[in-house]
């Protein structure tokens, strides 16, 4: 499906689209407040970007170092080329331990690999324990945001969902009450789980440890009670040194939600006493991204979601309109890398305003990468022919000045003289909700000729002062 079509559906419900926009803008505003309280913010961004670029340029060595150190701490490291292998590895580990019930904290990687349905097909009960994730899991929908998975849902809808699945009071909508219902429900799940699975926010090559950040404490509960902990990470989660965490933990929560740090930033080094720790390192197309000079920078992403919160398109079109695990600006870079044909419309779901680039804590030039994607898509023939044809035509006209002038005159004449129904026809997307600009009788170049007389043509070298129009009538001074 095309993003524009799904977005138009979302926008059609205007009050809801406004509500969604306002909710996310609120988070963006909190982010602004948090970052403007740190004078070194831009230095932090620079530093984080440089650390990530360095890591990417030494990724193989750092992965090996990480594996060595993690193994020395008693963890078992697994490698998966793709989603299928990742899922298989997780299932194998679970089966070896006779696990029937698994609790999971938020992991966009497992979403990307569609781990839940896979495990469920193989008889494992999977419970997402992040409240937002649990809500969308009960609703049988994918998350619409990577940090706030249920940001698209209203409390009334969540109340209804909880009433149906968790026996909460009918008609209850109070977030405090609903969160308490979820707390009781999930405590039960934590208590009976045979294993816990987490994502990884940062993996440290130097120490072989990794960090998981949550606000709810669900990752920690999920892996501190059962004996088995599985952590799944993309190859890009690596950083070289423990002290680099200082940079990233300062950036992550401030960018994501405007908090100074998440409530829990847990550092796992080896399994807990008497337990087992398995780390699954996943490629799933990432090494291909590494190959591309243009898009390599997107591997710096720390999944804070700031680009979504600030994106004027995401805020008004909702996360599901992207049909990708990671929606919004960064998702629009990652998705076509996997399947350009399917996701060709995402790089166009962007007004190129550049706000994403400026909020990005690791300085990914997101909007320029989206522009580059458009070029890639055009080069590889993924653009609809209408677009290609109209651009070719425009180029031909604009290359030839007299033709441009002629077409301009004809166009303006048509706008002035054609009946309204003809101008505002069904194919005129501009005119659906907007008036076309006025069509003046004469263009600027014609008027200029009248007002200022002589003009210069290219090729003749300009004579300074020769065509001066800046005479002494000037009434302002220049300093």
């Amino acid at each position, binding site marked *: 499906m095309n993003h524009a079509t799904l977005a138009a559906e979302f926008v059609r419900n205007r009050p809801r689209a406004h509500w969604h926009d306002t909710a996310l803008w609120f988070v963006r505003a909190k982010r602004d407040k948090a970052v403007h309280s740190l004078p070194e913010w831009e230095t932090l961004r620079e*530093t984080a970007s440089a650390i990530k670029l360095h890591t990417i340029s030494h990724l193989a060595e750092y992965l090996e170092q990480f594996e060595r150190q993690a193994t020395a701490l008693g963890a078992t490291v697994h490698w998966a080329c793709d989603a299928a292998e990742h899922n298989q590895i997780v299932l194998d580990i679970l089966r070896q331990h006779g696990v029937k019930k698994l609790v999971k904290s938020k992991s966009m990687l497992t979403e990307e690999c569609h781990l839940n349905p896979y495990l469920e097909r193989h008889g494992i009960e999977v419970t997402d324990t992040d409240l937002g994730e649990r809500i969308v899991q009960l609703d049988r929908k994918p998350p619409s945001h990577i940090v706030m998975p249920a940001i698209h849902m209203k409390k009334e809808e969540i109340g209804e969902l909880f009433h149906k699945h968790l026996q909460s009071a009918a008609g209850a909508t109070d977030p405090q009450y609903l969160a308490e219902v979820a707390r009781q429900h999930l405590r039960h799940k934590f208590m009976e789980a045979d294993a816990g699975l987490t994502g990884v926010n940062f993996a440290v090559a130097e*120490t072989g440890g990794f960090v998981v950040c949550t606000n709810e404490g669900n990752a*920690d509960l999920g892996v501190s009670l059962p004996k088995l902990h599985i952590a799944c990470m993309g190859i890009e989660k690596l950083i070289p040194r423990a002290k680099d965490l200082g940079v990233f*933990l300062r950036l992550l929560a401030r960018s994501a939600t405007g908090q100074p*740090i998440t409530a829990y930033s847990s550092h796992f080094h080896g399994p807990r006493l008497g337990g087992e720790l398995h780390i699954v390192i996943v490629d799933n197309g990432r090494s291909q991204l590494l190959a591309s000079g243009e898009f390599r920078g997107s591997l710096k992403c720390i999944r804070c979601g700031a680009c979504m919160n600030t994106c004027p398109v995401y805020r008004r079109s909702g996360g599901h309109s992207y049909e990708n695990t990671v929606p919004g600006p960064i998702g629009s870079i990652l998705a076509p890398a996997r399947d350009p044909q399917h996701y060709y419309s995402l790089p166009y779901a962007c007004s190129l305003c550049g706000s994403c680039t400026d909020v990005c804590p690791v300085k990914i030039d997101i909007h320029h990468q989206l522009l580059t994607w458009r070029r890639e898509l055009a080069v590889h023939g993924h653009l609809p022919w209408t677009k290609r044809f109209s651009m070719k035509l425009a180029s031909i006209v604009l290359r030839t000045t007299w033709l441009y002038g002629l077409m301009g005159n004809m166009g303006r004449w048509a706008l002035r003289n054609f009946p309204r129904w003809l101008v505002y026809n069904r194919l005129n997307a501009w005119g659906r909700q907007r008036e076309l600009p006025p069509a003046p009788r004469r263009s600027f170049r014609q008027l200029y000729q009248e007002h200022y007389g002589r003009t210069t043509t290219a090729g003749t070298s300009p004579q300074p002062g020769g065509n001066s129009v800046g005479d002494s009538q000037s009434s302002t001074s220049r300093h």
Partner: protein
Amino acid sequence: MAEPQPPEHRRSREEILSAIRSHQPPGTELPTLEHQWITYVDRPAQFAKVLTEIGGQWVRVPDAAAAHSALGEIPAYREAKQIISRVLGIGNSNVDLTNISDPHALEPIDFAVLSGEFGVAENAAIWVTDRNLPLRALYFIVQHLALVLPAGEIVDNMHQAYERLKFNRAEFGAFIAGPSKTADIEQSLVIGAHGSRSLTVFCVG
């Protein structure tokens, strides 16, 4: 330790690493992290300000005895049926942790008083580990948590924090900043998601 991976997964390891090696861009420098990072004139005051903003309670006391009596004023503590304290002189334990080996048994604990190693002024985070508390689940499963923080053990920022931390053995550590919380329902902040419903920090000294 678990058994080694089956050979097909080892193949994947080689495949991934060689794909990375063949695509790896030219090396760039690793920054030193040397910078004039933010510092605060009054670190405890900054810590207290941030802690309050993120939903925690700040109690500044001269000594353990004062902390103990301040603890007695906290309703959650007074109403608690099962209490564990691991800090000498602060709080009265009525559950003996030495008899517990399964962390699931910690579920009914209402209140825990535990010690924090050091705090960070910029974000009110407190570093805790499982070095002296092998059942690390206690930090997260208890209904109400109090952490005791020596006033002299507050650093300015996260860079200083990591200068203190050495990760040279199998150990769990976490920064805890405020009580557990969620805003997953319409961005309304709810304190007490899955972890502790409250966090009181006793800053001693």
